[in-house]
């Protein structure tokens, strides 16, 4: 098979080369010079421009008709304004596309070389040039103003009663966090991320556990290094890597101890996280309520793209980003409209992030407020309130403070 392909390619190359040679020879017999374009060739190329124009325009129209309805109607409020803007822009550029390409191809045919003709010496014309500076200028002014009005509406601050939802990305999945009854997200830090705490939520208990874990690791590594000091069994490079690891663990520990407890609305952000709800792989949002997404990323830049809502925002490690929108069509309504009972809104990653980038997705469910509330109520809180064990958790708190203070001593 491989051989066959290579053989065909080689034969084709030889054939073309031979044909060229024959052509060259016959041409030299006729004493034609390559630099003089024969009238027939010139005419053929001129005519081909018309053929091409016809094909190109027909193909364009076909594509517009068949694929012009690029997405279902926008399922968000701002998306409707955006689609309107898109329509105006597309209409405008389509008109210009046809007109300019028409003149280009038409002139190419119309003004083809004719024997005895002399071209018109027409070097400049200020009025014409002014015309096609001003007309695009005015058109663009319109596009800019119209576009910026829409842009400002999209990017304005979210209203005070908007539901805040945190969307958290990592290779290669999405996690969603709801803020619970206190409407305040608990603080988080990448230093505390573990398999049991995928978002790195900060809590006194979590800090204590993590510090213990790190201290255990350090102790373990240091004892290995110490043992080696007497018997020198380990290769030097390995010891070096151990020391390096200890150094990094100590820095990690210090970063955790540097975490500050802050307060929002009189509540510690180390505790407001207890009633947060973390959901993986599926996001529910209520219809006709403004939602403000807060995007965070764990590892590399991803992008949360929700084409049905005309929404997109990059998720950047270290820098939270935001996007607000108001969904207007529930999943059930959209299924009806499309006549597709399997339809689901989708959030997909739109910034290359690694091998499984092409399948980093999350289902979005838009539902009525009642359905949404019921669904949310059924989700598990990060840590259920343990009212009867009040004393215990206070104890844990002071214990943690102890750990921190002792650890900070040299």
């Amino acid at each position: 098979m491989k051989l066959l392909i290579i053989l065909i390619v080689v034969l084709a190359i030889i054939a073309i080369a031979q044909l060229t040679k024959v052509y060259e020879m016959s041409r030299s017999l006729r004493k034609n010079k390559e630099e003089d374009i024969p009238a027939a060739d010139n005419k053929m190329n001129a005519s081909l421009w018309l053929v091409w124009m016809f094909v190109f325009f027909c193909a364009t129209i076909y594509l517009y008709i068949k694929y012009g309805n690029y997405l279902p109607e926008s399922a968000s409020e701002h998306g409707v304004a955006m689609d309107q803007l898109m329509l105006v822009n597309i209409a405008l550029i389509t008109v210009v596309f046809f007109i300019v390409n028409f003149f280009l191809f038409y002139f190419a045919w119309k003004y083809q070389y004719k024997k005895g003709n002399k071209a018109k010496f027409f070097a400049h014309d200020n009025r014409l040039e002014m015309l096609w500076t001003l007309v695009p200028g005015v058109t663009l002014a319109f596009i800019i103003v119209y576009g910026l009005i829409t842009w400002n509406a999209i990017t304005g601050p979210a209203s005070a009663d908007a539901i805040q939802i945190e969307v958290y990305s990592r290779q290669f999945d999405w996690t969603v966090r709801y803020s619970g009854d206190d409407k305040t997200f608990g603080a988080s830090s990448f230093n505390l991320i573990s398999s049991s705490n995928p978002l790195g939520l900060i809590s006194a208990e979590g800090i204590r556990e993590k510090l213990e874990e790190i201290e255990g690791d350090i102790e373990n590594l240091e004892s290995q290094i110490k043992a080696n000091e007497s018997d020198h069994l380990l290769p030097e490079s390995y010891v070096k890597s151990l020391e390096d690891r200890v150094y990094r663990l100590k820095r990690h520990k210090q970063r955790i101890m540097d975490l500050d407890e802050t307060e929002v609305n009189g509540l510690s952000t180390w505790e407001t996280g207890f009633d947060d709800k973390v959901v993986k792989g599926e996001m529910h949002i209520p219809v006709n309520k403004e939602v403000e997404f807060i995007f965070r990323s764990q590892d590399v830049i991803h992008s949360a793209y929700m084409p049905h809502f005309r929404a997109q925002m990059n998720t950047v490690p270290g820098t939270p980003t935001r996007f607000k929108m108001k969904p207007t069509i529930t999943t059930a309504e959209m299924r009806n409209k499309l006549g597709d009972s399997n339809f689901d809104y989708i959030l997909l990653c739109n910034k290359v992030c690694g091998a499984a980038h092409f399948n980093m997705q999350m289902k979005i469910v838009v539902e009525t407020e009642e359905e949404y509330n019921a669904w949310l109520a059924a989700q598990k809180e990060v840590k259920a309130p343990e009212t009867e064990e009040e004393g215990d958790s206070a104890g844990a708190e002071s214990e943690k403070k102890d750990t921190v203070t002792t650890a900070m001593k040299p």
Partner: protein
Amino acid sequence: MIKMESTGHAHDHGHHHKESFISKYIFSQDHKMISKQFLVTAIFMGVIAVMLSIFFRLQLGWPGEKFDILNAFLGDKWAPDGILDKNAYLALVTIHGTIMVFFVLTGGLSGTFANLLIPLQIGARDMASGFLNMLSYWFFLISSIIMVASLFVEGGAASGGWTIYPPLSVLPQAMPGSGMGMTLWLISMVLFVASSLIGGLNYVVTIINLRTKGMKMTRMPLTIWALLVTAILGILSFPVLVSAVVLLLMDRMAGTAFYLSDIYIGGEALDVTGGSPILFQHLFWFLGHPEVYIVLLPALGISSEIISTNSRKPIFGYKAMIGSILAIGFLSFIVWGHHMYVTGMNPFLGSVFVFTTLLIAIPSAVKAFNYITTMWKGNIRFTPAMLFSVGLVSTFVTGGLTGIILADSALDVNVHDTYFVVAHFHIVMGMSAIFGMLGGIYHWFPKMFGRMMNNKLGYAHFWLTLVCGFGVFFPMHFVGMAGSPRRYYAYSEFEFLDWVQDLNPVISTFAIVGGAAQILFLINFFHSMFYGQKASQNPWHSNTLEWTTPVQHIHGNWPGALPEVHRWAYDYSNPDHEEDYVPQVVPLKPGEHAH
């Protein structure tokens, strides 16, 4: 070798130099030879880039199907059983983009035509510094070799896209391509920028200082104007890329955190805080956007020359053309943020970039209309070069228009990083610049090699390339508007994209045919180089100075004194003259006004 001076000594002994093979063909300091070295290297790189694109188009057109050819070229590791590996796919996409943008359309296009045309069209014996010019090529060649070599390292080539956004490009834990492959990418790019800067400085100095008598700035052919502005853009923006790349190297190798913050990957919280990945994007696009015009302007300059010559008409609005080149060059520095509307950048900053970006459409529109008016009432001769130049105007207009949508931040939100963007920049930048480059090759081949290329093959090459080019990129607009993100290995995982998937095999088929059509060009190019018909001195009846040099190349370009320029480059079909062209060296008739 002798350092050439623009003025002064007659140099009629130039062709008597006895030269060894090495000093003539390899370590040459002659701008004409260096130009050919750039061209041949770029063609080689271009072939690789096209092949890579066909490999990944096979996967995109027929995802999951087995292709022996993939296995044959990429081996069992990257294409086991003939199915492209996911990481290998990203590596192919990345290296395709890198090679095309930097090595073919920056190094190749500017390197070839700046070297060939600047001294010849301004009437200089050579570049200001032949040695630096040679150095520029060798840096280019070494960086090309490193870039190609990076395809063969363990873990594969860089895979984060040609824009190599951190943290992805910093962390080998994130993808195998961010290991050795990325290090080589970065090293190659530093060398490439060195080449570009050395070359660019040389071009600017040469144009400013070594113009022959009478070659005022306002008499220079538009090619030279375009190459001048291109070189200035490169000098001002490439150093910023180097700093971005060096900081990235530090993040990778020296444990710094310029671009990194709050990262947990591979089961470990990295020891990085306080950096910003967005900083890299600002630095990158501060080069990246002027880069678009570094690619495009030489092509526009070349096509101005070709369209005017072959329409037998002066270029319409010469001064407006210069003005729009300058305006585009200036504006290109204050629009980079339009690549970053959805990075969380302050929305007000976004609106400023909307404004500046859309302003670029005005000088671009002026250029497009001026080309068309140049053809109006012309007497058009369709050489292959002319076909490519007319094609360029079409791609420039067609691709430029969709830029209006992408520049509009409110619309960009929904099409950002989709195939709509891929369609846009491949048409406006990729096709236009390639057409400019191919047109330039067909037009100046007689000057480079003293022989003619075959027209018939050139015609076939052009029409196939035009049809396939649009066939590949035009449908992508629709794939993108339907919501297909770029750099996806397959589109099989999303039901809502199913209905546009029938376009992908069509696109891939056009890509394969279009790629194969380039074989016609390669045959024509290499065959004509040795066996083409001998060219006459001024085959296209052109006005510019390069056609007053002897067909056989000599050092110093002109035997005897340097030519003196008496008129602008566009006196075609001047009613005061019998012939339909009046070369720049022809003195004004009594009573005739210079343009």
